[in-house]
Each structure stands twice: as C-alpha cells, then as structure tokens.
C-alpha cells in the first residue's frame, strides 16, 4: 500500500515538498504522527497527487477543511463517510497516539516539529513538511479534534505505578473479605468493575505484561456470569485494540451502577481514605455510580439476582417513572351479526343466555382502569369494518376458550419445518392462527396457510377492471383462483431474515433481515410494499403493535426504532442499550415497547416521548425472548442463560425466576387468560409454568421497590407444570390460539 500522507501541505509549500514527498512511507508518517498531530488542515492527499498541480491539492484542501469542520461539530459519522468517499486513509485525520504522548510532547510545538523534521530527514524520505505558520493551527485543531474514543480513553491516562495495581486490588480484597458478613456481599460488587477498569488502565498505559499478570491473577475471582465479558477483555491486550472496541467504549461511557447500603458505603469510604488508596478511590469516583440507599444491606442472593448486566444494576430513579400498564378500553362494537347469532341461538332453545354475559363484558370495559393510559395517549388507527368483524370473531372464539390451570393443561400442536437445513430463523402465527410464516437464512420469507383455505393473490389491475364491483361477493371476486396454493414465498431481502411479524388484521407481514432493512409485505398481493431503511446493521427483531399501524424494530446498531407503516422514517428512536437490541415487544396497550438486549438488560420505553421508563437487570446472558402478560402488568423474559425472569412493570421489580431450561430460550408466551406461561427453548423442550401462582401474593411494597430487597422463592419446580420434549426440534416460536390451544414451531434438526 502506497503511503498517502504527505505531512503538511500548503499551497505555498507545495514546491518545497514535491520533490521528495512522493516517496512517503508508512513508517515515516508514524514517526511524524507521534509528534506532529497530523490531522492538520494541511495533511494532504495521496502520494501521487502531491506532485500534481496545485489545483488538485486545493481540492484536497477544501475537502480537508470540510472534514475539520465536521469534526469540530462532532459529526463523526459524516466524517467517516466523507473520508471514505474521498479515498482518504483513516490515519490522515486521526491523531494517533496524540493523547498518550501528549503530556510529553504537547508543550513546545516548535521544538517538537523540528524534531519531527529531523526524524523525517534521518529517514531520508520526507522533508520537514511543516512551517511554523502551518503548525499553530495544527496544534489547535489537534487539541479540539479529539475523536470521541480518545476523549473517553484519555480518562485512563492518569498514571499510577503499574506494579502497585495488584497491591491495591489485593489490599481491597483483603479488606472486603475481612468485613462483617452482612457487608461483604454488597462490597464484593465493587470487585468486577474495579477489576475491569484497573485492567483497562494498565492496557491503556501500555503496561502490557503487568496487565496480563493482573488479569491472570484476579480474573478467576470474578462472578461466573461475567465470563463472556472477561473473554472479550482477555483478548484485548493492546492500546490499539481499545479503539473501536464497542464493548469497552460502553463500559467507559456509561458508569457502572452499584447499589450499596449506606453503612457498607461508609465502611468502604473510610477504608479507602485511611489507606490513602487514591488509585481505587479515583476509579470509584470517576467510573462507578454508587446508588446509596438507607436500610439493611442486601444479601448475596439478592445481589446475584439483580446483577449480571453489562453496566451493573439499574439506578433506582430509572424505574421510578409511572407506567400506565393497564389495558385500553375495548371499543364497543355494535354487532348486527351478533343479533343474528342470538336469533339462531333462540331457535336452538337457548334463550338469551349470552346477553347478560355480554353486558358484563361491556361494563367491565367501561370501568376506567386507573393504571390504564388515556385512550388517545397514542393516536391509534380507526377500526375498519373488517377489524370489527374480526373482533366479533375473537369474542365468539373467546367464549369457547378453555380455562387453563394446573389441572387443565393445554394441548400442544407442534409445527415442524422439515428440510429446512438449519435455515429457519424466525416464525410467526397470525392472531387467529390461520397463517404461519417462516423467515429463512436464505433470505426468503414463506407463508403457509394452516387452514384448508388456500392463499390467493388479488387479480391484476387489468382483470380487476373487469369484475362487477357492485356484486355482494366482490371480495371473493377480486381473488385470483389460479394462484391458490398452500404456501407462498416472499423474496426481496438480501440476507437472513431474523424477525417476522404479522399485522393484527392479517393484511401485512413485516420481516427484518441481516441486510439492515425491515420490509412490509402485502398478504393480498404477496409483494413487498415498503423497505424501511434506517438500521444500517442487521435488524434482529421486529413486531407490529397489537393495534396495527405502528411497529418496532431493533438491531445490531443498539437502537430500537418505532415506525408507522406509512412513514419511511422512524417516529421514535429508543437508544440507551449498550449492545445489540435482540428482541422487541409491544405492550398490549401499544403505549410501551419492551426491548431485550445483549447487554443483558431489558428496557421499557414510552412510545409517547421515547423515554426509557424501566430498566430490568438480572439476566446473565443476551435476552432472546420477551412476553407481556395479557393484563399488561407483568413481563416475562428469557435469555441464553436458560432462565425465565418475571417482572412487575408497575413496581419495576423482579418477581420471579423460572429455572429449568438448559439452553437459550427463544420463545415465551402467556395463555390468553394469563394463567399459563409457555416457554420454548433450544434444548428441544416446551415447558409450561403456572403463571397464576407465580404472580400470586407478591411482595411489591414500595420499600422493596426502593431498595431492591427482593425475595425470590426458589419454587421453579412447583411452578413447572409440564415439560414436553421434541425429538430433535428446537422450539423457536409459541402461540396460543384464541381458544387456548398452544401452537409451537421449530425446524426439525436431524
């Protein structure tokens, strides 16, 4: 690779340089970089063009000026794009190592530059490429233009004696091991963040071997649920690695949150001050956020239940906002159809039994739930006639619903995808269970009809003109019989399809893919209607709102986006997760969105203002499944750690832990009445849990909410109602039909 960097090039100086600059080599530039802080307005174009006419280099100048401007305004992404398009190498702008050696070299610019020049000339390739005039702005620019990463990392530049790190750490360890039992568990929380920050400091300050020794000595002491992070950490041994490592960046930018009781905190503080242990004290001050509460210190199990996320526990304030978790009032529907039905029933000799029932239903929904959001908090789409019909169908089916319970378990119908060759990545059922869709690694989406009714396309426009629009069965007539088939393939994505969701009215299907787009498909024409671009990286999950129109998507870019089907740009961006957003779910009242992430937290977002209203920590692995209880009060989450956690949304508390699965849980679903929670996992089992019992008599007073003194009973085995093993089929989707039959789906994996 030819070197592209010609030191500082001004129009005036062009002549000076061009004799030799063309031979610039990498090494020289590095030598320069160290001292010169080269992201100067003058850092110029490719080697070849150095020699070229002044015009070309003027162009370069403007380009660089633009880049500088962008930089100053922190538009780093634009910088990147522009730079890429202009074909400038990364180094042309980056102040490599500037910060680190800044202390030494920052002072005297002139001298340094001379030195730089000497060095260059020694290498006999480059002339001293700068003049005093050019340098002053260089310095300034460099001072201002630290890219984000370096700002973040530079906090580490404080120097301590690397050899003492181990002493400090083990000193603290000894202290914490010697304190009273009740405090020990709480104070032990400090170990992990301290360990990580101390290690990073060592790495940042180029004490490679010390860092390694430090890691080897203490990494074994850390809690086992941090293993994954430690693995990332262990591979990071050089300062250069720190740049661009997202995990680390997160660790640095967000303060690690610890919840410690006041007594324990005082103890720690006194100890550190007595020992004058500034190193540790600084880290605690700068990088940790200690959430102090008054009251009893928490026990080890209570702490373990809540910890495990990438950035510690949630701050208490984070979960204080009021959440309207109640359900929206069901719109009242006058049913001409229902009358017919009743007449029919009358004929059968069942006089009006249904009527009182209906009334009770109606009156129930008339009562305003104090926890429910107001009806128009979020503008929801108007109900169409077809939606009303569907609602009627729903109610009819609901009357035939089976009451489930521990003594009355649901039947499970399993849909196996055969010959999928490990390519099945996502599955969804329609609410009425008439269609099933599968997303595949080969970028296709397939839709099957599971009822005898075949899938038909709408006729072409020309043919549509021919039909009689006045006829009663016009909806039938528009369908093209010739296209009837049991399944349809939707092609359009250019990467594996990871998320899939039917609209509630069954007219649309959403799919999200590795290619960074979310696509909206029509199930009338079986064509793609819209491609929503916004995530630049793989989109892991997407879901329609229960009321239609809105949908949410989340992906590798750590942002969840709220969209409306008729807008090509997102309406809301929910950002705050520190790693990939792996799954997204709408609250039954459509006012909230829950997202699970690889940072091992679950966040609840308010659709109205885009605020994060809840942060749930406690999982020890990336979260892959979420489910709201039908009454909207609870949330269940499943992760790669094989545990299902239950959360009280109103109080922002963990209320249960269901252990039993041995592999990633990919699917969770509450029965229609919320009595049973079904979980499907990679370990080829479907498990049923007694949700009623799990949510019974919870201790959800304000005190526990305030301090996180949760008491989880270890009663998973009592709550487990059934385990159903498939032969060799991971369960990746579950769905309760309107009559409470459980449908499960997965790809047979011989």
């Amino acid at each position: 690779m030819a070197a592209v960097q010609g030191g500082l090039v001004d129009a005036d100086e062009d002549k000076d340089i061009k004799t030799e600059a063309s031979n610039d080599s990498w090494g020289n530039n590095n030598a320069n970089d160290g001292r010169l802080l080269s992201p100067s307005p003058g850092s110029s174009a490719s080697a070849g063009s150095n020699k070229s006419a002044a015009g070309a280099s003027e162009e370069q100048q403007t380009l660089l000026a633009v880049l500088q401007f962008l930089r100053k305004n922190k538009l780093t992404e634009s910088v990147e794009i522009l730079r890429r398009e202009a074909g400038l190498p990364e180094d042309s702008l980056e102040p490599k190592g500037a910060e680190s050696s800044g202390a030494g070299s920052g002072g005297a610019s002139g001298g340094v530059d001379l030195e730089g020049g000497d060095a260059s000339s020694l290498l006999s390739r480059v002339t001293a490429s700068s003049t005093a005039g050019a340098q002053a702005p260089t310095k300034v620019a460099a001072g201002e233009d630290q890219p984000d990463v370096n700002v973040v990392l530079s906090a580490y530049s404080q120097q301590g004696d690397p050899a003492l790190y181990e002493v400090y750490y083990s000193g603290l360890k000894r202290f914490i091991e010697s304190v009273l039992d009740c405090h020990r568990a709480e104070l032990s929380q400090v170990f992990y963040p301290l360990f990580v920050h101390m290690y990073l400091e060592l790495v940042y300050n180029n004490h490679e071997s010390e860092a390694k020794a430090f890691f080897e000595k203490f990494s074994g002491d850390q809690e086992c649920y941090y293993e994954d992070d430690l693995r990332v950490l262990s591979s990071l041994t050089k300062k250069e690695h720190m740049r661009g490592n997202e995990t680390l960046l997160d660790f640095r930018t967000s303060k690690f949150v610890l919840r410690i009781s006041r007594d324990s905190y005082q103890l720690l503080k006194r100890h550190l001050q007595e020992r004058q242990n500034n190193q540790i004290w600084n880290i605690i001050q700068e990088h940790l956020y200690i959430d102090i509460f008054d009251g009893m210190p928490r026990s080890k199990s209570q702490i373990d239940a809540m910890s495990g996320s990438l950035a510690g526990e949630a701050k208490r304030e984070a979960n204080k906002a009021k959440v309207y978790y109640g359900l929206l009032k069901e719109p009242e529907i006058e049913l001409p159809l229902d009358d017919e039905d009743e007449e029919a029933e009358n004929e059968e000799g069942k006089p009006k039994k249904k009527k009182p029932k209906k009334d009770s239903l109606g009156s129930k929904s008339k009562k305003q739930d104090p926890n429910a959001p107001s009806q128009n908090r979020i503008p929801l789409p108007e109900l169409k006639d077809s939606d009303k019909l569907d609602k009627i169908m729903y109610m009819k089916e609901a009357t035939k619903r089976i009451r489930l319970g521990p003594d009355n378990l649901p039947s499970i119908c399993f849909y196996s995808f055969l010959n999928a060759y490990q390519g099945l990545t996502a599955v969804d059922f329609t609410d009425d269970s008439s269609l099933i869709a599968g997303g595949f690694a080969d970028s296709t989406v397939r839709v099957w009809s599971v009822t005898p009714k075949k899938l038909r396309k709408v006729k072409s426009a020309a043919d549509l003109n021919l039909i009689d629009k006045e006829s009663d069965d016009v909806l039938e007539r528009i369908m093209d019989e010739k296209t009837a088939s049991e399944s349809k393939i939707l092609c359009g994505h250019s990467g594996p399809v990871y998320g899939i969701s039917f609209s509630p009215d069954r007219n649309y299907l959403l799919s999200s893919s590795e290619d960074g787009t979310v696509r909206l498909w029509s199930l009338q024409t079986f064509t793609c209607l819209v491609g929503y671009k916004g995530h630049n990286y793989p989109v892991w999950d997407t879901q329609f709102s229960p009321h239609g129109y809105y949908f949410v998507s989340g992906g590798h870019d750590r942002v969840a986006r709220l969209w409306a089907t008729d807008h090509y740009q997102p309406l809301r961006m929910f950002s705050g997760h520190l790693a990939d957003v792996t799954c997204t779910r709408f609250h039954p009242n459509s006012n909230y969105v829950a997202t699970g992430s690889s940072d091992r937290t679950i966040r609840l977002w308010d659709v109205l203002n885009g605020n994060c209203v809840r942060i749930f920590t406690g999982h020890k692995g990336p979260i892959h499944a979420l489910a709201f209880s039908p009454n909207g009060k609870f949330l269940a989450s499943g992760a790669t750690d094989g545990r299902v956690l239950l959360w009280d949304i109103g109080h922002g508390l963990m209320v249960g832990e269901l252990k039993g699965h041995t592999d990633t849980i990919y699917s969770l679903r509450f029965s229609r009445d919320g009595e049973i929670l079904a979980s499907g996992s990679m370990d080829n089992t479907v498990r049923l849990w007694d949700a009623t019992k799990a949510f019974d008599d919870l201790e959800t007073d304000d005190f526990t909410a305030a301090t996180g003194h949760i008491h989880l009973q270890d009663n998973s085995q009592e709550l487990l109602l059934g385990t159903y093993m498939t032969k060799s089929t991971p369960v990746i989707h579950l769905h309760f039909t309107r009559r409470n039959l459980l449908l499960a789906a997965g790809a047979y994996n011989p």
Partner: protein
Amino acid sequence: MAEERRQKQCSVILPTESMKAMAESVGVGQLQEESCVAISEEVSYRIKEIAQDALKFMHHGKRRKLTTSDIDNALKLKNVEPLYGFQSQEFIPFRFASGGGRELHFYEEREVDLSDIINTPLPRVPLDVSLKAHWLSIEGVQPAIPENPPPAPKEQQKAESTEPLKVAKPGQEEEAAIQGKSQGATAADGKGKEKGLIRLKPRSTHELSVEQQLYYKEITEACVGSCEAKRAEALQSIATDPGLYQMLPRFSTFISEGVRVNVVQNNLALLIYLMRMVKALMDNPTLYLEKYLHELIPAVVTCIVSKQLCLRPDVDNHWALRDFAARLMAQSCKTFSTTTNNIQSRITKTFTKSWLDDKTQWTTRYGCIAGLAELGPDVIKTLILPRLTVEGARIKAVMEGPVVSNIDKIGADHVQSLLLKHCASVIAKIRPQPDNVEQYRTDYGYLGPMLCSHVMKARTQAALQAQQVNRTTLTITQPRPTLSVSQSGLSGSTGPRTPSIIKVPSSLTLMSPRPGTPSQPSPPATKYIVMATSAGTATTQQVITLSSSQSASPVTSTVPSATSTLQPLVKLESGSGPGLTGSRPLQKYIVVSLPSSASSSLEPKSSVIPTSISSTSLEAGMKMERSESPGASTQSPH
C-alpha cells in the same frame, strides 16, 4: 472452576510461523520476527473479535453450530469483504502437512475438471421446506407417536432399574411429580397429590391405549402365527419401534408364559418363535430389559437346558433352538451382568452344576455346554477344556458301548460335535503349533484325535481368512438340516391324545384327530408343518416329500436351497389327492424353512437328506390353530 476458566481465557495467539507462511504466500519474504509477533497479535485479536460477532449471528439464526455464513456476516459487519467460496455446511476437513521445519494446516482445494462436472448427472434436487403438524401434548400428556421421543429414554430406564434410589432424588422427583400431576389430570389418580408427605416412588402405570392394545394383539399373534412374512414384520417392529416401553411388561410375561406352556407341550416351533421375540426385544435400541430379566432369563434358560423340547427328539432339530437360546443368554449376560446382579456367574454356576451331574441327559448336557461355550473363549478355557477327557469318555461309552438307545446316541453325537466346534478354535489359540495326534489323545482322551484334526482345520482356516465366524444373529445355526413334520394324522394309533397344546376350544375341535372317512364332510384341513433347514452350502436341492395319510399320495415339493442365509418361506398347498372325495377341503402344507448359517464347517454332515415322513408316525398338529384362529391368543398373559 476458577482454574478451568482461567485456562480457557488465557489468550491464545497464532504462531508467528503462520504469519510467515502467509506472508510468503502473498509474496512477502523475509518478514522480521518482531513484525511477525506484532502482526500475529493483531490478527489474533481481530479473529477473536470476528468470532464473537459471528456467535451473535449463530444465536439469532437459532442454531448451535457456527457456520461459515456466520463468519461472512460478521465480516460484513466490520465492512470487510467476506471470504467467498466457503459454502460448506459441514465440517471442513483441514489437512496437515509438515516439512522444512514447518507445520501447516490447510484446506485442500482440489482441481476439478469442468467437464466432469458438466457430464455428471445432476444431483437430486433437495427437498423443499415443508410444514408438518403433530401433537406434542394432548391435555398435558404426551402421546407416544413416532413424532415424539420415546416416553422413557433408555438411559432413564437403565437408571431406574440399576439405581432405583436415585430416581427418588430431587432431580428426578420433579419429573415424577409432573408425571403424577399430568396423570392425575387424566386418570384422576389421587395418589400423586399425597406425595408431599411421604416420599414414595411413583407407581409406574402401564396402561395401554386402545391403539397399543391392538398393536400388542397384532404383534403377538403375528409372532407366533404361521405366516413367516408377518412374523418377520412383527419382529422387525419389535426390534425398532421406539414406543414399546409401556408394553414391555406384557411382552415379557407373554414370552415367559409361552415358554412355560410350550415346553410342557414340547412345541418346538413356538419356542423358537418366542426366542426370536426375545432377540428382537433385546435388539431394540430404546428398550432396557433389566427389569424384566427375572421373567426372560428363566424362559431362555429353559430353552437351552430343557430335557425335551420337541415331540420327537430323535428327528426334530431342537439343537438349533438350544444354540440360539444359548446365544441370547450370552448376549444378555454381556449387556446386563453387573456386580450386583451377578447374572453371568449365576448362569455359569447353573450350567456347570447340571453338566457335572452324571444323571443329566444328553439334551440338557448339550444345552449346558452350548450355554457355557457361548459365554466366550475364557469360559471355554476354564470350564470346558478341563472336562474334555471326562466328557470324551462318556461319549465313547455311548458311541462304542452297547446300543442303549438311538436318542442317546444322537445326543452324544451332538455333544461331540458341539465340543469339537467350540473347543477347536480355543485350543488352536492356546496350544503351540505342532499338533500331534498322540499328544492330543493323552491330553483330551477319546476326543483327542478328532480335536486334533479340527484344530488343524481351524488353523488353516485362520491362516486362509481372518477367521470371521460371522454369525448372523437372526439366523439359527443348525448342525444338520432336519425335517420335522407334524401332522394331525388319521390313524388311530396316535390314540386319543389331543395334539393341541392350546386351550382354545375352537382350535381343539379343529385340530382333533379325525377318523379318516373320506366321505365325511369334515371341515378341517389337515395341516403339515414342516420345519426345515437347508444347509447354506449345499448345492443340491432338497426334496421334501410329504405323504399325506388320507390320500396316500405323496406331495412332493422342491425346496431350492439357496446359498443365502435367509431361506425363503415356502408354502405348499397341495390339492386333494386322487383318492380323495370332492368333499375334502384343500390340504394345506406349510413349510417353514429355518434359515441356517452359511458356515459349512459347522455342518459336517450336511448331506443328511430330508426325511420323508409317513404321517402315521406323526401326530400333534402343532401350533396351527394359531393360523386358524388368530383372535385366540391363547398364551396372552392377561
């Protein structure tokens, strides 16, 4: 645990040699050592980074296996051109090469001739994705259908039977509780709920669904019925079906009862069928028979050592059954013998004890020896070889002494050939080379010379081939082909003895001996069951001649003796003979040919020709009633 983890996390770095090799492969020679170190550190770090991202794709692809496409996608995330050409879903074989002080692992890329690809026929189009639904659970109970895993995996069955205490421990208690619950839901089993107080091992219920009952009935009937094709199917089903766990106790009782009854009745064919069922059950990979050995082993042992297994010990080949059962016994010893149940030592004791008894009959003696011999060369060496002299003397007494009875002679003959067969190979291994006849005589007495020749034969054979005494497990090896024809005869000489072993009245009437008035419109057909084996090596065709008593006209059929191990079933149906009146129904002859093993060496006298049997000497229609009245499962244990 911390140790373990630290091990895992110690940072692995690619060797610098790899860097050098790679640099050379792209034309950069003479890379400095420091640069190599720097590059390898950087590369290792980047590779780890990419692997971590690839894992994300694996998780979201809902897979357990990382594929090449995951790596491609991870590279794409980093804005790096993916590696093209790695499409394999399967394991990519890396090859290893060393030379010039370097060790390389590389992926072999073969040169492919385009014309080869073009000319080869297109591979089959892979099947399209399809959707199939089945019931994983019906109201909380998992139905035992092929789509679902077997209700109790073999490991669990094994655990239950070998370590019954463990089952009650908390880990499995939950499952038991669940089962109790789910069963409580269906069968209203009250017991499941009281379990909170007393920790009881849950009763394992073996209720059979209607389908399972039907299946059981069909299978048992087919197994002991007359149609060989059906039997083969039934046995196949027993040997492979994953859902038989629930029916196991019933099968086990069926077999043990069946053996009990049929030994008394000397019904050889049925005993053989039952042993084949045992074999099939043992072959089923999803079943663990430990719990049922108390029923099965006595049945099998009976078939080995019983004094009499057939009606005509001089003609019928009960030896084959003994051999087969002995092999079954050996197999179950191998599979189930543990230090706690001591099956093998108990069985060995039983065999030796009755063998040592002087009064033991030749048949039992044969069984004991066969049973011991099948347990392996070690047993032969320690238990049989020392007794060869004694046994030889006894055989000599029978063979050369005054003729006692034909049956004894046959027995002694069989014992002799059995001993020769089993001992020869063992002796060949433990005795040094020069085989001196005289030496053998002094060592082994009467059997010495014969042993000597056998040993020599074994040695030459071992030299010729790698001595593959490859017994097909399903076949029954018989030293000689024998024909046994049982017929419910006409002659009054058989007396009033009812040939039927089976207590079904209808079959009794069917099979009761008839006064042979041809004019009488007697409905039942006379049946012949011919048990025949053909020597696999015999090239001649065997002619089986059956003379039916009524017509006195022999029905001759030719059974081609194939060299294959499994003989086809031969069914003969002869029309009425010329002397018959028209009112006689057709006579049915059913010839069941037992397959024989192909090893000719085991059959020194394979030239014995099918006997033509006069029906008068025969009686006892064997199990024919079964074919007549399939509904009557006479031995069914319920």
